[in-house]
Every structure is written in C-alpha cells, then in structure tokens.
C-alpha cells in the first residue's frame, strides 16, 4: 500500500475513535454532535482512501479521455482501457457525496433538537438534561 494511503487510513482511525469517544464520553450536547460529525468524516476518509491510486488520473476530469481516440488528431487523449487503468476508482466518491449530504441533514436536525432542549432546561449538560426529574 502507498504510504500516503496508509496515513489517510490512520488519520481516519483517529477521527473515528475521537468521534466515538466524544459521543459516548462527553457531557456537552454540542460535543456529542461534533463527535457524530467526526465519525462521518472518518468514514468518508476511509472510503476515499480505498479509491486512491498513487499517481493516477482524476476520473471526473475528462480531457484525458476520449472514447474513440485517434492518435493523429487527439494525440493527448487516451482510449478507455488505458484511462480505466490509470484513473482512480470512482465508485467510493459517489458514495461519499451521498454520505456527506445525509450527514449534514442529520446534523442539522440534531442541532435543532439541542436548541429546543436548551430552551427547556437552560443547560447543555447531558447529565442535567437526561437525569432531570420527569414532571407530568
């Protein structure tokens, strides 16, 4: 494996562990939400790292590639097979785009809920909100 890829996976591990730590251990509501954001970021980084190919082409940038490349006129273009061998693997990128959007929407719902809970209890501490006596 390429060293940069290994580094990306290690960083993703740090992000995921830090996020889980924040979700499970932290007392502040916003810290928990920040932790959820970090978990999402770390998973995205793992997915992107899977698709990486060292020194490869960017699959979305088309000038490298033409389906019917003719050497005389389009000498700088590649045929599809050649392009597919050189480019990085684009499937995880599509997954990550979806996941970023889902993560942002979940995050906004959680933030809205924490505002509502703050207005009720006048605190952001999980201990105080969830251990408070229930009044009917």
């Amino acid at each position, binding site marked *: 494996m390429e060293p940069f890829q290994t580094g990306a996976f290690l960083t993703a591990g740090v992000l995921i562990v830090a996020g889980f730590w924040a*979700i*499970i*251990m932290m007392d502040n509501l916003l810290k928990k939400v920040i932790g959820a954001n970090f978990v999402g970021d770390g998973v995205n980084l793992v997915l992107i790292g899977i698709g990486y190919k060292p020194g490869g082409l960017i699959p979305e940038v088309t000038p490298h590639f033409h389906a019917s490349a003719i050497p005389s006129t389009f000498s700088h273009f590649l045929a599809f097979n050649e392009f597919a061998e050189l480019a990085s693997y684009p499937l995880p990128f599509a997954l990550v785009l979806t996941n970023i959007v889902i993560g942002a929407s979940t995050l906004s719902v959680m933030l809205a809920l924490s505002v509502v809970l703050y207005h009720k209890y006048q605190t952001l501490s*999980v*201990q105080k909100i*969830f*251990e408070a006596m229930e009044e009917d």
Partner: protein
Amino acid sequence: MLDKIYEIFHDRMIHKGKGVGVGSGFTSEFLMISFFLIAGILVLRTANSILFALGSILILAAILFTVPSVFRVEKENTDSINLTSFYVAISIVTILIVFFAGSGVLI
C-alpha cells in the same frame, strides 16, 4: 425466609403507585432467576471446558445471593443516556472480542 422477601418487595413496590403489585415483582424476579439458570445450564451443556463450567457456576451462585435482582435490572435500564452509552461501549468491545477470538485471530 419468604416473609422477608415479601417485605422487601412490598417496601420497594409501595411507592410505585397502585399499578404495580407485589405479584408482578415476583413474576419478574422468577423470570430473572430462571433466565440465569437457563443460561447457566446452556453454558454448562454446550461448553466442554472445565473453566467455563466453574466460572458459570460461580457467577450463578453470586447472582442467587443477591435475590431481589429485579430492582437492579430496573435501575440499569432507566432513560439515562450515560448508562446506555456505557452498555453500548461494552457491547461494541464484546462483539469485537467474540468475533476475533472465535475466529482464532487473537488467540
């Protein structure tokens, strides 16, 4: 012995209002103890190792000494987010250990 248990249950149940009687406390206690017995028998029967068997007998004895175990279960299952987080962490670790050790990767 039985009077004492009845009194323990009565004292604990009295503040929960009319809805919960001593009978449901006894039913759930019976369910808990039979669950631990069943789990012990299962482990004894399926695991062939002496260590497992001894360990399960010890845990069983320890549980049978703390008879009103229902209240403990109830205390551990409140709406609190912290206790749930704790059990989630424990379960994640348990699942990882079981899968890795059971497939012979760790040991």
